[in-house]
C-alpha cells in the first residue's frame, strides 16, 4: 500500500482548484447558513449560474471579464428571485423548496429548450483563454513545491484562486463583525424576537441569501475557468450536500471554517480514493466484494457517514466552539 502516494494525492487535491471552488462556495453558504441560519439546499444553483453566466457570455461574444460580471450578477438575481417568495417559509420547507428550485433550474439548463444559450446536455467548452493567457508561468512546465509537482497552468490558478479566497474571507469577516452581522446572528437565534425589536428580518435574510449566492457564484466561475468546461451534470444536488459537509466540518458560523473545511475535505476525499483503489487492486477480500468502479464510490459513502458523525459528535466542526454549535441545538 502506497501511503505516501495517497497522502500526496490528498495534498495536491487539498490545494487544487476544486478545493478553491469549494472554499469560496462554502464561504457563501456559511454566510447564509452558518451566520443567518438559512437552510438553503439549492446552493449548487448559485455555482451553476456563476459558471454558466461566464461561459455563455463568452460564447455570445463577450469578454471573459464581462462574463464573470454577468455570472455574479445572475447569482444575485437568482438569490432575490429565490428568496422573495420562499424566505418566509419555515426552515424545513425552505430546504425542500430550494433543492427543488435548484434541480428545476438544472433540468432547464440541461434541456434542449435552452440549448442555444447553455449548450444543453453538452454544455460549453473553451471559453477561458483570456484568463490563461495572463499566466506568467509556462503552462506545461512543471513547478516543484516541496515534494509536489504542479503544472504552470495549475499553479497560476491556485495562486489566483487562493488569493480570491482570502480576499472574500476578509470581506465576509468585515461584514460579520459589523452590526449587520450581528443582526444576521440574531435572526439565526430567533426570528420573531428579532422582529419584535423592530428589525426588518425579511430584507436582512434576502441580503444574506443574495450575497452568499454571489460568493458561491465566484466558486463556480473559478472552477469553470480552470476546467474550461461547464456542463449541467457537474451541478447535481450532491454538490450542495458536499458544501454543507465542508461548512460544518470547518465550523459553521466561523470566518476561517469554510477554507479549512474545504482543504480537509478534499484531502480526505482524495486520500480515501487512493487508498480504496489500491485496496481494491491489492487486498483480496476488498477486491472480491468491490470492482474498481465500486471502490471509487466508497469515498462518497464516507462523506455521508462523515456528515452524520459530525452532526452527532462534533457539530461545531473544527473551529467552532461547542456552545455555539449549529442549527437548533
Amino acid at each position, binding site marked *: 500500500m502506497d501511503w505516501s502516494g495517497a497522502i500526496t494525492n490528498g495534498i495536491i487535491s487539498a490545494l487544487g482548484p476544486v478545493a478553491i471552488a469549494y472554499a469560496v462556495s462554502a464561504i457563501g453558504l456559511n454566510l447564509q447558513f452558518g451566520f443567518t*441560519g438559512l*437552510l438553503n439546499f439549492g446552493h449548487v444553483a448559485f455555482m451553476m449560474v456563476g459558471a454558466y453566466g461566464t461561459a455563455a457570455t463568452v460564447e455570445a461574444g463577450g469578454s471573459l471579464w464581462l462574463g464573470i460580471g454577468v455570472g455574479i450578477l445572475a447569482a444575485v438575481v437568482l438569490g432575490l428571485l429565490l428568496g422573495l*417568495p*420562499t424566505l418566509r*417559509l*419555515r*426552515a*424545513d*420547507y425552505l*430546504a*425542500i*423548496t430550494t*433543492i*427543488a*428550485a435548484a*434541480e*428545476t433550474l438544472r*433540468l*432547464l439548463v*440541461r*434541456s*434542449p*429548450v435552452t440549448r442555444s444559450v447553455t449548450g444543453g446536455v453538452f454544455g460549453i467548452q473553451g471559453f477561458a483563454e483570456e484568463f490563461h493567457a495572463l499566466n506568467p508561468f509556462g503552462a506545461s512546465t512543471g513547478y516543484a513545491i516541496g515534494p509536489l509537482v504542479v503544472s504552470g497552468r495549475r499553479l497560476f490558478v491556485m495562486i489566483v484562486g487562493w488569493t480570491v479566497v482570502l480576499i472574500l474571507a476578509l470581506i465576509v469577516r468585515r461584514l460579520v463583525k459589523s452590526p449587520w452581522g450581528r443582526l444576521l446572528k440574531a435572526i*439565526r*437565534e*430567533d*426570528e420573531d424576537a428579532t422582529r419584535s425589536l423592530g428589525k426588518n428580518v425579511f430584507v436582512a435574510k434576502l441580503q444574506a441569501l443574495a450575497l452568499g449566492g454571489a460568493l458561491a457564484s465566484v466558486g463556480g466561475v473559478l472552477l469553470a475557468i480552470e476546467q474550461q468546461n461547464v456542463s449541467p451534470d457537474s451541478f447535481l444536488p*450532491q454538490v450542495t*450536500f458536499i458544501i*454543507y*459537509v465542508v461548512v*460544518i466540518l470547518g465550523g459553521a458560523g466561523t470566518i476561517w471554517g469554510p477554507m479549512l473545511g474545504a482543504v480537509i475535505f478534499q484531502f480526505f476525499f482524495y486520500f480515501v480514493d487512493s487508498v480504496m483503489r489500491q485496496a481494491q487492486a491489492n487486498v483480496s477480500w476488498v477486491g*472480491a*466484494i*468491490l*470492482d474498481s*468502479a*465500486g*471502490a471509487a*464510490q*466508497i469515498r*462518497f*459513502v*464516507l*462523506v*455521508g*457517514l*462523515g*456528515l*452524520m458523525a459530525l*452532526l*452527532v459528535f462534533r*457539530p461545531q466542526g473544527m473551529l467552532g466552539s461547542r456552545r455555539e454549535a*449549529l*442549527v*437548533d*441545538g
Partner: protein
Amino acid sequence: MDERSSRRYPFRPVPGTVRIRAFALIALFSGLILQALPAVAQEQAIGGTLSQRAEEGEDPVPVEGVVITVTQDGNEVGSATTDAEGNWTVPVPAPGDYDVALDASTLPPGVTLSDPERSELTDVNVRPGQTRRVIFQLGGGGAGGTSTWDRVASLVVVGLKLGAIIALSSVGLSLIFGVTGLVNFSHAELVTLGAFIAYVFHAGGPRWPLVVAALPAVLFGVTFGWGQEKVLWGPLRRRGMGVLTMMVVSIGLGFALRFLILAFFGGLPRAYPDFASQGAVAFLGFSVVPKHVVAIVAALVILGGVGLFLERTLAGTALRAVRDNPDLAESSGIAVDRVVALTWALGAGLAAIGGVFFGVTESVQWSMGFDLLLLMFAAVVLGGLGTAYGAMLGGFVVGISVEMSTLFFPNELKNAVGLVLLIIMLIWRPQGLLGVRERIG
C-alpha cells in the same frame, strides 16, 4: 429557529436488548444480501435506447413498451421492454455473440422500423463486463402517427402508475414527519433498497418469482425502518437533537446509502427478468402495459388498507393521536415511543413495496429513489405534510401532472413540472390541500 418545528419526547431509556435485536436483524439481512451479491455484481449486458426521430430541430421521442429479445444459438437468453425514456437492458450471462430481435408487434401504432427487414441484429459481440449498445432505427409518425386519444389515455395510465408509486413511497415520509417532525431525506433510499432486495432474490441466487421475492424486500424495509428509529432517530431525539439537525443527518444517511448501493451494484439499470419482456397491448383503442395496470390496482388496494388501518385499528388511531397532539396522546396512556417505531416500520415497508413497483414498471438502479425523492416531496407537500391521505392524493396528482405534461413540454422537463408544483404549493398554501393552517405563538 422555529419552535413549532421542534418536537421533543421525554427521555425514555431503551432496553439494551431492543438495540441488539435491531442490529442482529440488520446484520442477518446484510449477510443474506452479500452472499447473493457475487451473482449480480459483475455483469455484462446488451442495451440501447429506442426513439423516434422527430421534426427538424426537435429531439427524438422515446418509444416505450417495445419488447426486445436476446437469443444465443436459438435459445432465449433474456428480454426487456423499453421504459418511459426508451431505455432497455438485457443482462447476458457470459461474454460472446448474441442475436438481438425487436418484436415489431409491440411497437406503438404509427411507429415502424426504418428498415422492416432489419428487426433482428445477429452476432452482436459482448466483451467481459461490457454493456454493448445496439441501435434500432425507427421512423414513421411523429406526432401524427398516434392519435391524441391514444396518447392521452396512455399517459393517464402511466401517470396513475407513477402516482401509485409515489403515493406508496411517500405515505411513510408524510407520517414520519407528522409523528416526529422529521423531514426524512433518506426516505428515497428505502425505496431503492426495496427494489434491490427484491431484485437479489428474484434475479439473483434464489430465483424466486417476483411476488415472493417482494416479501424479503418488505420485511427488510419494515425492519430497517424500525431499526433506524431504535438505533438512530430515537436516541438522537432523546439526546435533544433538534429536527432540523436530524434532517441534515438524514441527508448524510441518504447520501451514504445511495453510494453504498452504487458501489456494490454498479450504475447499470436492471430489470426484473420475469417482467422485462412485457410489452404494450391494445386496449380500448390505446396501448397499455399490463404490469402498469396491475401495479395501479395493487397500490390502490394497499393504500386502501393503510387507510383502514389508520381509521379502524387501535394502533392506527394511536398513530393519528400521537401525530395530532403528542402530549395529549401520552397523557392518555399511549406508548408514544412504540407508536413512533410503528410509524417508521409501516412507512419503510410501504416505501419498499413502492420500490418493487417502481422496479417492475421502470427499472432498478441506484439513483431511482433519489430521482423520485423530489417528486415525493412534491406529493407530500401538495397533499399536506403529516397526513397519509394527503400523500396519496398528492402522489396521484403529481404522477398524472408529470406524465401528462409531456403533451405540452419536452420529455426531459417533465420532472421539472412536479418540482414547479411543489414550489407553487409551498408558496401559496404550505399546509397542502388537506392540511390545516398552523397557529403561531
